[in-house]
């Protein structure tokens, strides 16, 4: 396999931005290393990366902390509420024991709810993004590399998929699809198991969200397929599958990574919107979306409870977006914003 990532870039001693002067050792840097350097210099992207990593750690640790009993997102603490069912005490009942306060009506610990909610929201976004990426990459490569009528058909499939507004489909399909998941696929859905709705949200987001990736990948493949190493592979008689997935695919990791990073925030937002329309994973299982939705009834009486999940969603969406932009700028310096 030939990867252009191994070609050596020499810093020009006269005009090179690396500042290598004549006499000094000439440093050779791979495009990867140059990209890493560009990325590290970009403060905003680095901050975003840190925030995203914190979110991922939080998401990964929440189930463990809940299992161990450190976080308790399900116990009712109604003794902490006043006669209106809202947390007693200022700022949504913030205390040492409940640093984010307690939720109205049930009095469950807000910190535990949102922390565990991050876990569910991010896993929904992650699984949906993986589905969308796989579909988008496979169709993009096949479309770009084959050309001709295959390309035309895939192009029309993309047009068709784009004709279904995602939010609308998520809402409209829910009755039939949930019945299908529970009754035909026999996914256990009784007693508040979040699984059927999880499968539903992930499925619809994935099946309707792959189009941009497919278009992006197709565009890249159109240039890659004229490269020497692809011609060489074709000449030595490599199978089509081998050319697609062993020769072309490894050269696409940069655009795939960028589109994955930009897909995550879109899906976190979509999950929240779905929770508002009651088709996402439902309480008692927390997601950032359904905690925020629950807080809407208390916007005027308990602003803290509303602001916390809203800001947590906004923060992760902003940071994933900035990270995606940063990665794109670092990996493809010509793209310029």
């Amino acid at each position: 396999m030939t990867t252009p990532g191994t070609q050596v870039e020499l810093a020009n001693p006269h005009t090179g931005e690396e500042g290598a002067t004549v006499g000094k050792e000439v440093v050779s840097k791979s495009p990867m290393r140059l990209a890493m350097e560009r990325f590290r210099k970009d403060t905003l992207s680095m901050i975003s990366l840190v925030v995203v990593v914190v979110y991922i750690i939080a998401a990964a640790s929440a189930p463990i902390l809940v299992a161990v009993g450190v976080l308790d997102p399900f116990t009712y603490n109604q003794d902490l509420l006043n006669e209106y069912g809202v947390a007693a005490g200022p700022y949504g009942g913030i205390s040492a024991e409940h640093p984010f306060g307690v939720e109205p009506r049930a009095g469950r610990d807000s910190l535990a709810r949102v922390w565990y909610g991050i876990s569910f929201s991010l896993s929904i976004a992650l699984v949906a993004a993986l589905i969308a990426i796989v579909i988008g990459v496979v169709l993009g490569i096949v479309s770009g590399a084959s050309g001709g009528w295959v390309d035309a058909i895939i192009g029309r499939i993309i047009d068709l998929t784009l004709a279904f507004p995602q939010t609308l489909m998520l809402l409209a399909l829910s009755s039939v699809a949930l019945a299908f998941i529970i009754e035909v696929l026999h996914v256990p859905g009784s007693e508040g198991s979040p699984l059927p709705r999880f499968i539903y949200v992930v499925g619809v987001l994935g099946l309707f969200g792959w189009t941009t990736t497919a278009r992006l990948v197709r565009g890249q493949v159109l240039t890659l397929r004229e490269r020497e190493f692809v011609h060489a592979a074709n000449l030595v008689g490599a199978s089509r599958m081998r050319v697609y997935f062993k020769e072309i695919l490894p050269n696409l990791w940069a655009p795939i990574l960028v589109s994955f990073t930009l897909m995550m925030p879109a899906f976190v937002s979509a999950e929240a919107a779905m929770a508002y329309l009651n088709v996402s994973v439902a309480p008692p299982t927390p997601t950032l979306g359904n905690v925020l939705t629950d807080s809407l009834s208390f916007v005027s009486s308990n602003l803290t409870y509303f602001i916390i999940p809203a800001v947590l969603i906004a923060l992760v969406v902003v940071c994933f977006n900035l990270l995606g932009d940063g990665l794109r700028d670092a990996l493809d310096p010509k793209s310029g914003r």
Partner: protein
Amino acid sequence: MWAYVVRRCLVGVALIMALTLITFALFFASPVDPARFACGKNCSAEQRDVTRAALGYDKPFVVQWAGYLKGLAVGRDFPLDAEQRAAAPDQVTHCAAPCLGYSHLDSKTVNEMVADALPITASLAIVALVMWLIGGVLFGILAAIHQGSLIDRGVVGGTLVIYAFPSFAIAVFLLQYVAVKWGIVPLPRYTEIADGGLWAWFSNLLLPALTLALLYLAGYVRMTRAFVLESLSEDYIRTAKAKGLKSRTVVFKHALRAALTPLVTMTGLDFASLLGGAIITERVFTYHGLGMLTVDANNSSDLAVLVGIVLLAGMIVIIANIVVDVLYAYIDPRVKVA
């Protein structure tokens, strides 16, 4: 040019047929019995059979699809079963072309329901469109001419942050604080122009349209900024500056023009797919437009209405795509139509 338009339209018709086929497959090809939703709760087995026959759900889904296409083209009579029509001729409802379906739960054609809801969503969409276009272009230009400065970062960052908050959270906040608590604007309630005049119509649309516009603003700011920046470094801008034009003229008449074609494309497509965003906005402000109709239909699992709305939305997108492509070829002579 005309050959191009005709060809695009033919492809559009094929896409609409494929769209209805896929929608039918999604809703009716699964083993889940659609009649049970259409019949409502507390429905006996016989009633369910009657409903199934009345709506044609007993036929294979390809036949249902063909029937639906026929309804779109020439209209249909409900119930679909000839025996039921013969038994109760006074209860036959004619659904004129383009027939989007018949809601058994509401005993109305989907066309009637859509006709009631469409003006509300259209009003919302138009006001929102004007807001985000003006806002997007002005802020985009502002950011571009101050590239790299605090203003630039503030505009781009600010719109990104607004975009990042879920739109229903923004909507509820606007409703609860701006309208209810602070009383800056009256509580939004949809008023027709015929009832309250232009101002009443507009002022009631202010908050819902703003919510919808904020959802799209960030994208338009970024795009305008990118294209204006690109064209600001072109030679013809330098020429325009050198010959002493006012900077306002340079920016609005010369630099902005480069951003016009992508803006038209993006606007056309976003406007067509607005329905998705309108669902949330309409639900928060209880505006009984198409979005609310979808929410209600979903709550009662009224598949006929849902299918009708999905197809309507899809057709709008497909038609908008064609219009945009043709406009594109018209605005930009470099686009090859062959």
